[in-house]
């Protein structure tokens, strides 16, 4: 079976798993990816909500901070950001929009954005979002990322309004969240995996674990043809031949499939040289 087909199945299985609450399953686990606990079918908690509650209104609860971070750290140490590529339902959604993004990528203005010299710095926005809106604003002004979270709106708010007709109405944050949601859709339609690249706070937590993960993508530099096909297909816009456990790599395996010389492969832990 082709790698991308396996990945598709994996994403479908995890999407179903992320909605097992529909069967009445309500656990005390955190999702290791981006999904909203306010989804009527959610069986687990959003890690960001737990972190926000840890810091909310001048408080600090170490358990609510450590628990989601350790959960993500455990998964990140084993597989790096593979959860972004293989499990995250929002990654799955962007897989769908990626085809459009690839076509739009050929447009001049998108190319300008993609090739702009400050584009690599955009990738740090997600760390600012994580620290700024999940921690700092929750602590000082009680404004939380989840108040305007586009993912929460897709899988939480809209299903909630649908499943409980007449019991919920939009609140003061709704209009702001709607604007963010529209921007979210524009982003993922014009930049492949735009959300994962620039804004995802969960990706920001997982990214450093790529440096120590047991699974990663390795390029055999000596046999590389430098055709750059791998970089062209990379949904995260990574310079694949020169990546060294790049924090942005989501281990989707597209570069592995595309490489004509077959010099890119998944590397697991090496016990012997």
């Amino acid at each position, binding site marked *: 079976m082709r790698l991308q087909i396996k990945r598709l199945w994996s994403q479908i299985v995890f999407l179903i798993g992320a909605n097992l609450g529909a069967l009445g399953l309500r656990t005390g686990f955190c999702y290791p990816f981006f999904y909203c606990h306010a989804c009527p079918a959610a069986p687990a908690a959003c890690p960001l909500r*737990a972190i*926000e509650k840890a810091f909310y209104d001048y408080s600090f609860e170490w358990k609510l901070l450590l628990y989601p971070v350790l959960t993500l750290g*455990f998964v990140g140490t084993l597989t790096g950001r593979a959860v972004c590529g293989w499990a995250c339902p929002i990654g799955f959604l962007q897989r769908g929009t990626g085809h459009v993004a690839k076509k739009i990528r050929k447009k001049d203005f998108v190319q300008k954005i993609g090739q702009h010299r400050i584009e690599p710095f955009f990738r740090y926005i997600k760390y600012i979002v994580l620290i700024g809106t999940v921690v700092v604003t929750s602590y000082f002004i009680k404004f939380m990322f989840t108040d*305007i979270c586009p993912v929460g709106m897709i899988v939480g708010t809209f299903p909630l309004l649908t499943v409980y007709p007449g019991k919920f*109405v939009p609140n003061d944050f*709704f209009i702001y969240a709607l604007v963010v949601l529209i921007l979210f859709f524009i982003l993922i339609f014009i930049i492949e995996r735009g959300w994962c690249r620039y804004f995802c706070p969960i990706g920001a937590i997982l990214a450093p674990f790529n440096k*120590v993960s047991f699974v990663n993508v390795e390029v055999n530099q000596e046999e590389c043809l430098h055709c750059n096909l791998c970089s062209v297909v990379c949904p995260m816009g990574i310079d694949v031949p020169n990546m060294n456990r790049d924090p942005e790599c989501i281990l989707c395996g597209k570069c592995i499939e595309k490489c004509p010389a077959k010099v890119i492969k998944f590397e697991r832990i090496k016990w012997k040289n």
Partner: protein
Amino acid sequence: MEKLIVAQVVVLLVITGSLGGMFVYTDIYEDVQTKIVETICLSCAKLDTNLPVKFTFETANGKDHPDFIVDILKNKGPILIQYGEKACAACEDMIYNIIQPHFEIEFDKTYSFDVDIDIHGLNFTYVYIYIDDPATSQVRIDSYDVYDIEHIRGFPMFTVITIEYDHSGKIKPYYASLYGKFEKNNNYPKMIQTFTELIETSMELWDRNIAGYDV
């Protein structure tokens, strides 16, 4: 390469050990389950302001009224319960714009407490149940499900409880639950009026029925 492997193993062991320790030695699993997963977060939606307020005898989950409620009903009078949680803007709004100023209650929103109120001609027991207060008993947290008549699991929820004859002629606890900020456009005077009317009705029913209330 050996250094990397050592780093990988050390990181994995530290994380696995810490996570395992949290599961074994703390109540984090139950905390996340009851306070996040089973509680609907209303970031950009809120509970509808137009849900009907109806008194009923039937508990929402079919279980009996908790003992602490029955004790208050038997010995003191009607009850107003407010259920709140951390990171709930509507909970705080209701506390600081209605409960605290109108009923003149000394408030620390992070601790659960009971207080007897005697003001504006209203006599009742105010019970504040803050589910994120570690000292809040599980019985009190679970009482939410007893009175969540719309099966919403959203906050804040207010429940007014009194006693009344049921259809079989027996006097039983009789309650109504209100959700969120239950009037449109932050109409606080109207909310206060709703509370006042509900509590007055509860007091009247309690006074009329307490003599025959046998637990």
